[in-house]
């Protein structure tokens, strides 16, 4: 995780585009400027970034299903639970699955596990839209390549 750059997913462990499911890994860094403010003397990953982590796992799964022809944008956090604190230097397992493949939108369910124990879960909805430009599309393709290779290596 590079929290400052909103790069939340470090590796794709498995992906099933037909079924619409993904398992990814997110390594919480030991240090980040985010921890300087959240919170001084008691660093914790902000809950919104855990939601973002679940959204990104969902997003990469949707991007792969869409062959990177369109972009899923987070539109609705229908529900989210953060069941415990997440501290620096932890390894997280992020799972997401397609709940509904709509026309121009998609709904997913996502969860985060630590040491086999579920610590977050959410229901999310995405608008599926054309990429606004090639810069974003190419960035998504590059980033997906990096996290896919990370699991292979």
């Amino acid at each position, binding site marked *: 995780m590079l929290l400052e750059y909103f790069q939340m997913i470090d590796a794709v462990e498995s992906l099933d585009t037909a079924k619409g499911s993904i398992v990814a890994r997110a390594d919480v860094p030991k240090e980040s400027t985010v921890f300087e403010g959240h919170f001084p003397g008691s660093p914790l990953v902000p809950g919104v970034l855990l939601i973002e982590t679940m959204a990104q796992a969902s997003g990469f799964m949707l991007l792969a299903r869409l062959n990177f022809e369109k972009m899923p944008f987070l539109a609705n956090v229908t529900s989210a639970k953060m069941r415990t604190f997440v501290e620096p230097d932890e390894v997280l397992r992020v799972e997401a699955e397609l709940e509904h493949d*709509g026309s121009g939108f998609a709904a997913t369910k996502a969860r985060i596990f630590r040491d086999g124990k579920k610590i977050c879960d959410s229901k999310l909805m995405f608008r599926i839209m054309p990429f606004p430009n090639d810069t974003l599309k190419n960035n998504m393709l590059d980033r997906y390549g990096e996290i896919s290779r990370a699991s292979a290596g």
Partner: protein
Amino acid sequence: MSTTFEAVAEIISDTSDIPLEEITPEKNAFTDLGIDSLDFLDIAFAIDKHFGIKIPLEQWTEELNENKADVDDYFILGKLCDRIDELIAAKTA
């Protein structure tokens, strides 16, 4: 067994917090009931799941953007329910 309109009205009432008695077949979801596009995603999701269909929102939006259709054609609730019935019929045909 509820009619398509009754089911859709309940979905709209639940998702958008609009009193059921205000939801009538001649109302336009956007201009009369004040539902916005994000709220309508929730409604479309619930309708898709309830009826086992896929409302072609992308196609409708494209037709509206290209002035090939009017917003009333799809989002007057009575007409929306007619479209839903057509999708249900096409699914079971």
